[in-house]
């Protein structure tokens, strides 16, 4: 398995704020990786840096072997990286179908082909019944589904999902987890930013933890949960000496 994403020494400052400092990690192909950390840790900024919405001050991002720092978002998408936004950005005046077709058009110029491909993506996320609804009339959760379908329509090799689980009830979380499982089986590499533990534990074999812009830990779920640095970042230093059941 090759490496889908190799991030090295990524840094970005906004004025006085060091949003991302010297972050490095790799993602294998077909792997699902979770990027976690307390609020303000730099997770969404990292996504923005990877997908070209901000330019990093230093560092490199290799996607499927190609350096993508400096490329515009649409080129990065064409190269195979698709993303969703934390606050969904649907094309409000367009129908669900039209929204997803916009994504599908990246790979197929023909409107009929794009429409067919779009319908596949819409069905995958379960929005077929609302195909003709205007995007601005959808519920927030359906807008997230739309966002996912639109991203999938661009036929990505790497999917970046920004907090898609926020506000979902347990059964909806399970549905989303199942979707991700299916995508992963198809070979899609997935990187998620998430807070919902249930989902992270279910999908991610590999977790990267950020705090204040820096990577503080990396490993499998068990290692992360027991990592004192991670505990300190989320709960404060008062909790780092709690003995863990399997210690020693």
């Amino acid at each position, binding site marked *: 398995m090759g490496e889908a994403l190799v991030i090295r020494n990524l840094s970005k400052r906004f004025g006085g704020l060091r949003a991302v400092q010297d972050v490095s990690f790799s993602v294998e192909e077909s792997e699902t990786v979770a990027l976690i950390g307390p609020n303000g840790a730099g997770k969404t900024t990292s996504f923005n840096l990877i997908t070209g919405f901000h330019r990093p001050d230093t560092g490199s991002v290799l996607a499927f072997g190609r350096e993508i720092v400096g490329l515009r*978002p*649409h080129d990065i998408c064409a190269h195979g990286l698709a993303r969703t936004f934390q606050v969904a*950005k649907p094309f409000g*005046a*367009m*129908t669900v179908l*039209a929204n997803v077709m916009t994504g599908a058009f990246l790979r197929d110029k023909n409107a009929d082909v794009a429409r067919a491909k779009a319908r596949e993506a819409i069905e995958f996320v379960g929005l077929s019944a609302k195909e003709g609804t205007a995007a601005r009339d959808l519920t927030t959760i359906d807008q997230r589904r739309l966002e996912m379908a639109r991203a999938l329509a661009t036929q990505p090799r790497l999917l970046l999902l920004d907090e898609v689980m926020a506000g979902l009830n347990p059964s909806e979380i399970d549905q989303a987890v199942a979707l991700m499982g299916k995508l992963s089986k198809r070979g899609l590499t997935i990187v998620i930013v998430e807070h919902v533990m249930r989902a992270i534990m279910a999908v991610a074999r590999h977790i990267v933890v950020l705090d204040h812009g820096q990577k503080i830990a990396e490993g499998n779920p068990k290692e992360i949960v027991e990592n004192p640095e991670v505990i300190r970042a989320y709960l404060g230093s008062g909790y780092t000496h709690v003995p863990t059941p399997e210690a020693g």
Partner: protein
Amino acid sequence: MPGGDRDNAKTTIMRKPRGWGVLSLCLLTVIVLALPGVLKSSFAIDILIRILLFAFIGVAWNLMGGYAKQLSLGHAAYFGLGAYTSTLMQVDFGISPWIGMFAGGVVAMLASLPIGWLCFRLRGPYFTIATIATAQVLMLIFLKFRDFAWGAEGTTIPNLGNAPLMMQFEAKAAYYYIALALLAIGLAITYRIERSRMGYYLVAIGENEDAAEAVGVNAPRIKRDIYMLSAFLTALAGTFYTQYIYFIDPATAFNFNISIEAALVSIVGGIGTLWGPVIGTVLLETTSALLQSWLGSSSGGIQLTVYSLILMAMILWRPTGIMGFLFEIYGRHIRAEPARA
């Protein structure tokens, strides 16, 4: 059989709009083609020509301002460039305005590149202001430079009587048909774009440029391309108008009112729709003609006062324009994509 009936019912409903649509379009075409023959009044034909021309300018504006929401108030720049290019070629070199019209379009296209590059650096209202500024600059340039473009007094076009090859006709109806052809071309282009990838990309950019980029839309290039097309078409209108009134000067060719009306008819009629600019022009120009006949020739300011009141009313009541209102009443089966929903 119940199932069979249901299927038939569905197909009938699906067919009706399409059948009606084609029928009414044919009817409209017949009426429109026959009008100059039916109407004897020169005044009436004049109004119709104005309607056709400004509908065409509105359609050109709409491609960029309506679909992609790049709200330019500087389109007079291209109107003027088209007008001056063809006139210069005609008066100085004797070249037919038919060729000059096309050349004017090309000049406008080329001009839209640096202007677009500059203006697209700003977003929203500041983009609009920048477009106003560039149109004003062009007017100032043409006012100052008497050496190649007659300066502030402009020039008249030598009247050659009936000279079709030089775009001069004795019969007013000829101008009517040319304007009609221009409008038809503009509508055809819009229709094709609407249903193609470009159309979806334009609306996507207009709705949320960042999200569009995230799904692979090359926003800067698309904006640049549609601006070139919009400029090209507007320039054609400039040439036509100059040939129609046999006169050109900077104040007329680069008049801010042209920029205003281009945007206005689209907004009032239905921004980002195929027929919006046409409906808007019919409404506004008819109102204007009525005002003129009631109050005599432009009692300074009344026309624009009425226009601005109509615009304000539209924005406060129905920003999607008349077409938006119709879509709401007649449901959404009219068009599924790119979806004026």
